[in-house]
C-alpha cells in the first residue's frame, strides 16, 4: 500500500514538473515574439515610457497605417517587398525540394564510388557564409546582368537550400526500409512508380519539414539579398526592414509592424505543412 501511494505521489510530482518545465520553456519561446507583436500596436510614447507601462493603455493601428499608407514613415514600398519575398521564396523552395528529392534519393538508395566525398563536398558548400559569397556573386551577376532580378536571387537560394534539403531527405529516405520498395517492384511497379507510391508517402513528413526549412531560409535571408538586390524590383523584406532604420532613428513601433507582416506568411505556411507533418509522422513509424 505504502509503495502504491508513494508511486502515485511521484507520478503527480513528475506531472507537475513536466507542466512547469513546459510552461517555462514555452513562455521563453513566445514572450519575445509577443513583445514584438504587442509593441507594433502601441504608440511610440508608450514604448519609450520610463517607468515602463506594463498594461497598455491605448492600442492603435497607427504603425500599420503609416507602413501601408506610405506617408509619415518614409513611403517604404512594403507591399512590393512583400510580393518580391513571396515570389522568390516560393519558387526557390519548390525547385530546391525537387532537386533535393532527386539527390536525397540517390544518396539513400544507390551505392557508388566517391559517395562519401560527394556528400561532404555538397555539405561543405553550405559552409560558405553569405558574407564571403556575396562579393564574387555580385561581380558575376553584374556581368551576366541578373543582378537585381528575381531570377538571380532564386538561383542563389536554390543553391543555398539544396545541400541541406538533400541531407534531410536522405535521412528520411533511409528510414524507409529498402524491402518496401523492392516488394513493390516485385509486384510489377517500375522504380519510378515504386518511388511515388511507396517511398514518397512514407518520407513525406521529412520532405515537408525540409520544405519548411527551405522556405524560412529564403524568406529570412539577409546577407546575400542585401548585396544582390538594389531597388524595389527585387528587394526582399529583410532588406526592406533596414530601409526603415536607415531613413529614421530606430523606429521600434514601425519595425515591429513590419516584423509582424514578415511573420504572418511563415506562420500560415507552417500551419498548412504541419498537417502533412503529422500525417507522415503518425504513419506508424517504420517497422522493419
Amino acid at each position, binding site marked *: 500500500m505504502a509503495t502504491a501511494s508513494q508511486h502515485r505521489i511521484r507520478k503527480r510530482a513528475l506531472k507537475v514538473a513536466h507542466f512547469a518545465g513546459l510552461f517555462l520553456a514555452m513562455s521563453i519561446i513566445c514572450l519575445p515574439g509577443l*513583445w514584438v507583436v504587442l509593441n507594433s500596436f502601441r504608440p511610440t510614447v508608450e514604448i519609450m515610457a520610463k517607468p515602463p507601462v506594463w498594461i497598455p493603455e491605448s492600442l492603435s493601428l497607427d504603425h500599420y497605417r503609416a507602413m501601408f499608407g506610405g506617408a509619415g514613415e518614409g513611403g517604404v514600398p512594403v507591399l512590393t517587398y512583400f510580393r518580391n519575398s513571396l515570389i522568390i521564396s516560393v519558387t526557390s523552395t519548390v525547385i530546391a525540394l*525537387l532537386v533535393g528529392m532527386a539527390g536525397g534519393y540517390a544518396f539513400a538508395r544507390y551505392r557508388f564510388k566517391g559517395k562519401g566525398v560527394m556528400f561532404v563536398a555538397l555539405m*561543405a558548400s553550405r559552409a560558405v557564409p553569405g558574407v564571403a559569397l556575396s562579393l564574387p556573386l555580385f561581380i558575376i551577376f553584374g556581368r551576366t546582368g541578373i543582378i537585381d532580378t528575381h531570377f538571380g536571387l532564386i538561383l542563389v537560394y536554390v543553391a543555398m537550400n539544396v545541400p541541406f534539403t538533400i541531407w534531410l531527405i536522405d535521412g528520411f529516405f533511409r528510414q524507409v526500409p529498402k524491402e518496401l520498395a523492392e516488394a513493390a517492384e516485385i509486384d510489377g511497379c517500375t522504380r519510378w512508380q515504386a518511388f511515388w507510391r511507396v517511398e514518397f508517402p512514407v518520407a513525406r513528413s521529412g520532405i515537408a519539414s525540409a520544405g519548411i526549412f527551405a522556405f524560412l531560409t529564403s524568406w*529570412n535571408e539577409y546577407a546575400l539579398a542585401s548585396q544582390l538586390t538594389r531597388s524595389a524590383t527585387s528587394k526582399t523584406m529583410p532588406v526592406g526592414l533596414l530601409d526603415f532604420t536607415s531613413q529614421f532613428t530606430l523606429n521600434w513601433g514601425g519595425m515591429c509592424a513590419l516584423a509582424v507582416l514578415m511573420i504572418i506568411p511563415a506562420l500560415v505556411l507552417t500551419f498548412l505543412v*504541419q498537417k502533412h507533418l503529422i500525417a507522415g509522422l503518425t504513419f506508424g*513509424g*517504420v*517497422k522493419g
Partner: protein
Amino acid sequence: MTRNRLPPWLVLLLPAVIIILAVVAIPLVLSLYSSFTPYHLTRPDTLWKWTGSFNYIKAATDPNFWKAFGRTVLLLTIALNAEMLLGLGLALMVSKVTHGQRALRTAMMFPMMFSPILVGFQFKFIFNDNVGLVNNALQSLGLTDVAIPWLVDGNLAMFAIIFAEVWTSTSVFAILILAGLFALPQDPLEAAKVDGCTPWQSFRFVTLPFLMPFIYIAMAIRSLDVARAYDIVQVMTNGGPARRTELLWTLIGRTGYVDARMGYANAMGYIAILLSIGFTVYFFLKLQTARRELGMGD
C-alpha cells in the same frame, strides 16, 4: 537502345551538382584567386597583382583575427551544446503531451520564423539598457535599481548574443529530435520495459542511441548555420564594444565592405571556411558511426 546511359544516381544528382557549381564553386574560385592579390574594392586593377601568401601571413599574425577566431569557436561550442540539450529536453517534454500538441509544436517553431536580422533587432530592443524588457522587468520586480548595461559590457553582450542565438535555434534541434522520437520503433522500448529497465535506462540505452543520427544532423546543419550569427551580431552590437563581440564573419565583413580590402577579407574567409568544413566533416563522421550502430548502412 545501345546508347550509353548515365548511371541513375548521376542523373538524380546532376541538377544539384550543376547549380552548386554555378552559384558556389565558381564564385569561390574567384574569391580564392583574389585572396592572393591585394584586391581593393575601389581599385579594380589591383585584382591582377599577385602577392602570394601575403594576406594569409598577415591574417595569421593579426591578434584581432585570432581573438575573433577563438570567440567564434567559443560561441559555436556553447551555443551548439546548449541548443542540443535544451532541444532534447523540449522535444521530450512535447512528445509526452497528449492534448494540444500540435499547437505546442507550432509555437515551438515560432523563433525559427524570425529572420536573424529581426532577432537581432528584437533582442537589441529587449536587452536595451534604457527601454528594454529585461531591465524593465528586473527593475519593476525590485531586483535591481541600476540599468544593467547588457549590450555595453563585453561579457554581458556576449551573453546576450548567445542567448539570442540559442533562442532562435533550439527549435531546430527540438523539431528534428521530435521527428526522430516519432519514428522511434516501439518494440525495443517495450522489450526494455519487460526486461525491467528503469525509464532512465530505457532512455539512455534505447531512445538516445536511436536519436543520435537526428542530433548529429541538427548539429551539422547548425554548425554551418551559426555563420548567420553575422546578422544577429551585426545588428545587436556590430562587433563592439571595442571588438569584444567581434566574430570571424563580422571581422571579415568589416574588412571587406567597410575597409574595402577584399583580398585580405577573402583570405580570412578561407581560413574561416576551413573551420566550418572541419566541423561539418566531424559531425558527418559521427553521423556515419551512429547510423552504422543502428544498422542503417553506409
